[in-house]
């Protein structure tokens, strides 16, 4: 259990530092008080700096499809959390919880990414359990 305990402690620390793990201000780009929940299919994954990103086609209530741009941490931060560049694949059905961009763009900071089988990918803190 030791490593599990350590991992949990580490994730607590990560949560506390979450908004600082970026090369830009989190608060001026995303509104932590504007949560979004998106369900759709992954259309592209960019394993790039300064942030890894993925894009999801989301069906709107009127039947149209909107492509959302979802920001993650940097590839090295994600690797440090055990993720790989193929942890999320094009075609995966995902449920994403995040914070919406203040600019009004179809963009969000992804906090929790859940696959159809419930597996969490790029989870970022203990509240994601």
């Amino acid at each position: 259990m030791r490593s599990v305990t350590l991992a949990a402690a580490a994730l607590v620390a990560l949560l506390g530092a979450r908004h600082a793990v970026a090369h830009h201000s989190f608060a001026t780009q995303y509104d932590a008080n504007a949560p979004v929940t998106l369900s759709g299919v992954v259309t592209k994954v960019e394993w790039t700096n300064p942030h890894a990103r993925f894009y999801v086609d989301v069906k709107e209530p009127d039947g149209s499809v909107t492509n959302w741009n979802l920001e993650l941490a940097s590839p090295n931060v994600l690797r440090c959390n055990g993720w790989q560049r193929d942890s999320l694949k094009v075609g995966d059905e995902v449920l994403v919880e995040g914070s919406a961009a203040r600019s009004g763009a179809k963009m969000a900071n992804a906090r929790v990414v859940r696959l159809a089988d419930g597996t969490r990918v790029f989870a970022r803190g203990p509240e994601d359990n």
Partner: protein
Amino acid sequence: MTVRPLAIAVAACCALHTAVAVAQSEPPAATSAAGSGGLSNPAIVPEVPDAPPPRLPDGTVDLTGIWSGGGPIGNIADGLLPGEEIVLLPDSEALMKSRLSRDDPEANCLPTGVPRIAPYPWRIVQHPPHGPATHLFFLFEGNIHSYRQIFVDGRGHPDDLDPTWYGHSIGHWEDDTLVVETIGFNDLFWFDFAGHPHTEQLRVIERYTRTSFGTLENEITIIDPGAYAKPFTVKYTATLRPGWELMEYICNENNQDVPHLIGPPGL
């Protein structure tokens, strides 16, 4: 030598995983069934020896290693020592108030300058490696993928410095503390996300003390009569990240953030 867990390991980054297998000795949680929500990734949790700082054969403290932190990120005022205060001159106060988050050089993939640090790991290299060092190099993963060079060979500052992002740094040892003085800065970088400014008159004194194997304290005095009414001193602590490695970080590769940074600077 005992080993203690480094709890905040995953707050930053690591590209090399094979050297930190201790904390991963247990298999990751199994992929969960729908809705049960088990974590499926094993976080990397390096361990730091609970030991005094290592020394070179000549007795000098060895600062080499991968570190994270050690300087301001969000707001330099967070590191103020007791009794210290930041007093902006009117022009600098007006400049700071006029700044917009999207103009932050770091957000635009430009260097942090000094003493700002990015939330990514960095490495200290000493040359020659077995001391006494005449040069120290700070290699930054981000932001940007760049370096500082600290001359510890007794030279002074040149008379005709061109203003630069990292300035010209000379260092000397005072007991176990490496004292680094840097001048020759441009006025382009910010001290933090909050937008604290400076002028080309900036002089920074950093006092690096490796107080334990895994801890590097950095006491920083900011002297800039062009921007601040008086010097002020802040203190930050860098943490050793054994087993981590720097990863390529080309900020301009996919920097989509700037148009979406709204309003004045913020955390």
